[in-house]
């Protein structure tokens, strides 16, 4: 069913376990421009003392702007404060 691009011959076991090309991607963090980090995969999120932070969904967004009211998760507040992750052009009012 999958388009098995980039898999070598004879690694059917690895393919069944993860998927073509995914062997090193059990956990993926995606940095979205001007927004949060999205985390996919089996990773524990804890307080400094090791107390687990309750995680109720498969993919979570971690606050990157520092202003979320539900840290460590994102609540969209970055959109209200003009948070930018990308270099700004001269004259951009958000710079």
């Amino acid at each position, binding site marked *: 069913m999958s388009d098995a691009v980039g898999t070598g011959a004879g690694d059917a076991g690895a393919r069944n376990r993860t998927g073509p090309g995914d062997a090193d991607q059990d956990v993926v963090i*995606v940095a*979205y*421009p*001007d*927004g*949060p980090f*999205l985390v996919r995969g089996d990773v524990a999120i804890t307080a400094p003392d090791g107390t687990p932070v309750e995680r*109720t*969904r*498969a*993919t*979570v*967004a971690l606050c990157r702007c520092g202003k979320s*009211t*539900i840290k460590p*998760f*994102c*609540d*969209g*507040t970055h*959109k*209200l404060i003009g948070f930018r992750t990308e270099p700004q052009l001269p004259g951009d009012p958000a710079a």
Partner: protein
Amino acid sequence: MVLPADRGPASAALLDILSGEADAAGTLAAEVSAALESTPDIVFDDDLQLTLFCLYELHYGGIRDVSDDWEWDTALLAARGRIERAFEAALRARVPLPERPEPTAKAVAARLFEFTAADTGPSMSRFVAKKATHEQVAEFLTLRSIYTLKEADPHSWAIPRLSGRAKAALVEIQADEYGGGRPTRMHSAIFPRTMSAAGLDPAYGTYVDAVPAVTLASVNLISMFGLHRRLRGAIVGHLAAYEMTSSVPSRLYGDGLRRLGFDQDATWYYDEHVEADAVHEQIAAHDMAGGLVEAEPALLDDVLFGAAAGLAVDGWATERTMAAWAAGDSALRTPAAVR
């Protein structure tokens, strides 16, 4: 849901057919024609929007004591198609589109974030947070219940029509909407807790008779986008705009409910959306909408149309509600329904 009450000749003709009092070769086509010719504005037309809503309902959970065979009845489908074409044409003529970005995921996402942030309609969420009475909140929940009790379903029609990155993104969002495999966490199952706490009946369809045409129009719009492969760009744009205008307002709705003394179980629906839609909006903008446009650049304008039309119709519905409240009136057609 149960059969609603008719709102004019076209919906009366349909309801007579569905309840077995007339056959499909009867007056439906003529009544729909007459209604389409005489309506001053299809978006706010009770008779036509209720007719369309009932025709769509045959594709969802069905209508109590109505045969499922009507779903694919050609006379009913013909009537649906004629109302849809007029509805779509009215929206395309009236809804201004955002400036077209480059057909890349990055540019599409940036334009959608810019467009949804600039939405200048009246803010229901700020009103609920600061001022709404308990009664107004009950009316707000009643109006929202028409969509929210089947939340996510209209967008799920798009799944088999997408492929690759856009499809994976839509399914990831929908899986979360449907509770990640836990029925009690389905968003459509959490909302009834809020309704019950407000003294409302959370059974699907209870309040169809109570809501105005424009509220039905806002749900009919999503069904129309979802049920037509031709409009797959629009359904994707609509969902993206919904996700991108949800997390911040949901926090305000939760604040309003807490201000009025609702407990944590009652605010769960909104608290859940603060966190969930901050995830979904990134996936929706970049991977679903952006991914679709990169795969099918010809759909760019429809992605923008879907986003703009969704926000426009919901904005008109909000304006109507706020105007009624400002005048000291109920926002519902039958206010007694929620007392």
